[in-house]
């Protein structure tokens, strides 16, 4: 056991080497362009010069296609279930907001902004006007903005439900962090169309793949900031909690989460902004909303219409940003350990 522990790194590296060799062998044996006889390669070394040899090709494409097909055929019911649940939630939010009289919706936004910003009148009035101007730009924008918002709200809801626990798990164990970090990197760097289009195949056209894409695109910053926020809590404060006998749970909910909250709110804010960016891209797979208007304007070479819709998106962004941002700020003022700002 002791010897195994000591040589863990070497064993791991040997394992990696084995996997690499296995990849070489399988890709060679599956290749259609391989030479008739492996001996040819050893006699004639011309394949080492010039172009990449055609038989040296990892068949990842085939593997993914086969996997995707079985996923779609055998486990389709799972995706359908997810589809139905998300669609139901979306309709609930959308119908509620659309059926409500528009002045009431504006009032709701204003009240929300007022309390979130810690009763700052300036911010509240500004947010109110921005909301009004969304509909004022073009009557149809009001409904489109609500459709967009509904998709975002569901997307952000999923982000919060999955992202915050993930962030907590990362902050608690270095091993979990080492596993999740590369996945987050992947989610942030892979071009969004790479999962938008497969999303259509699994969930069909419309809002649901957009929600899924929003989730993939927007969840990484929330996870990262939750993790960072918890780890940034002053070590002496954590020691104090430990020294007075706080259990792990008490420490998390009583000390770490409240102190990490400004960072988590920042994460939700970032999440919101990225979700909004995704909603526009998602219009290209037939998702209805403000992005759809931009696309339409551009297709008709109607620059004015596209610009109008673009401005509406910016206004929506401002409204959502102010509400989430200012909530984080009010929290921060109190919990910042070193600033001396009295109330």
């Amino acid at each position, binding site marked *: 056991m002791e010897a195994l522990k000591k040589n863990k790194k070497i064993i791991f590296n040997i394992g990696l080497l084995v996997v690499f060799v296995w990849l070489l062998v399988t890709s060679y044996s599956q290749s259609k362009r391989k030479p008739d006889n492996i001996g040819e390669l050893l006699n004639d070394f011309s394949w080492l010069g010039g172009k990449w040899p055609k038989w040296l090709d990892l068949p990842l494409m085939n593997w993914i296609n086969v996997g995707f097909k079985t996923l779609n055929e055998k486990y389709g019911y799972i995706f359908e279930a997810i589809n139905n649940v998300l669609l139901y939630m979306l309709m609930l939010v959308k119908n509620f907001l659309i059926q409500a009289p528009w002045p009431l919706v504006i009032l709701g936004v204003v009240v929300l902004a007022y309390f979130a910003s810690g009763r700052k009148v300036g911010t509240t009035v500004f947010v109110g006007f921005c909301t009004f101007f969304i509909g004022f730009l073009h009557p149809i924008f009001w409904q489109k903005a609500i459709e967009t918002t509904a998709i975002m709200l569901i997307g952000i809801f999923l982000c919060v439900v999955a992202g915050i626990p993930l962030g907590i798990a990362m902050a608690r164990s270095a091993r979990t962090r080492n596993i999740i970090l590369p996945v987050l990197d992947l989610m942030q760097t892979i071009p969004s169309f790479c999962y938008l289009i497969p999303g259509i195949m699994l969930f069909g056209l419309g809002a649901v793949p957009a929600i899924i894409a929003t989730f993939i695109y927007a969840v990484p910053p929330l996870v990262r900031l939750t993790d960072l926020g918890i780890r940034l809590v002053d070590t002496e404060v954590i020691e104090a909690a430990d020294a007075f006998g706080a259990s792990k749970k008490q420490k998390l909910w009583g000390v770490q989460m409240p102190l990490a909250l400004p960072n988590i709110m920042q994460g939700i804010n970032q999440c919101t902004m990225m979700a909004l960016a995704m909603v526009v891209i998602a219009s290209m797979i037939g998702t209805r909303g403000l992005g759809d208007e931009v696309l339409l304007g551009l297709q008709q070479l109607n620059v004015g219409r596209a610009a109008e819709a673009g401005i509406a998106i910016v206004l929506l962004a401002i409204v959502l940003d102010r509400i989430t941002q200012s909530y984080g700020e009010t929290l921060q003022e*109190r919990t910042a350990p070193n600033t001396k700002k009295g109330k």
Partner: protein
Amino acid sequence: MSKIEINNVYKIFGNNPLSVMPMVKNGANKEDVLEQTGHTVGLDNVSLKIEEGETFVCMGLSGSGKSTLIRHLNRLIDPTDGEIIVEGNNVMSFDKEQLIDFRRHKMSMVFQRFGLFPHKTVIQNVGYGLEMQGKPLEELNKIAMEKIEAVGLNGFENQFPNQLSGGMQQRVGLARALATDSDIMLMDEAFSALDPLIRSDMQKQLLDLQSELKKTIVFITHDLDESLRLGDHIGILNAGKLVQVGTPVDIIMNPADDYVKAFVKDVNRAKVIKAKIIMKNVNEANDIDKSNLIKVNEDQFIEEFLPQIVCSNSNCEVVDKSGNVKGYISNKELQTSLTKS
């Protein structure tokens, strides 16, 4: 039985501390271990005993391992080797639940940078230990208010820590540690972050509280004057090794090595040494001129009667509380005791 016993504790920081243990046990010094293995020796064979009701001051420069040592007592840090016994129980044998219970009831801690919860009010901070003990809110608030009053912070109970000055914040830290009513209080450089006036004020407050409460206090500091003022016993750490343990007078009169000597070199001896330490017994003091005597109490510090003696060029007669003559101090001895190092 001592309240706290630390037996042969080693702490090594690094990737594989156990592999370095034989080397450290064979007496390799800190620099060699770091150079050859990349491990840092935090504590090197530390053993000491702390008695009930005393204030034990642990002193050393930064990096000497004093903060590491105090964190071993409530296992915020686990030792690499050795045992820690509190009230006869081996702390190392505790499982998770026992450890939490132990921390809730037996020990409380005050931190250098206060370690207050910035999102809780003063009263919530002070009540934190009680909350962990599971006390009902009403009782919690009552006890917390008592402690807030004890440290002189009435009227500030609903403020947040960042609205208070450094000294006031540390009073909150002190009140929080007092509130749990644990026998043992750990104070990690508790007053080091405060400016000198407030520090001396806090020291006085601690002495006053201690004379009433008689807790076992383990106090960490790098300030010799502070340790002489507060400590019943002082332990001096250098590079993870305990180089000397003794009473303040021991440390000043008989420093164990050059490191301790360098420490006590600049100390104001008149402030620390009492008359009874340097007096000669009655039967040994035949050569003293007894015609010109000034009476001093045996527990007085030299500082208190020095000016009188110097001005009148006289000798001292040392008496105890009821007036019995205990011994004499000649003018000359007084002078040498101040300059000897």
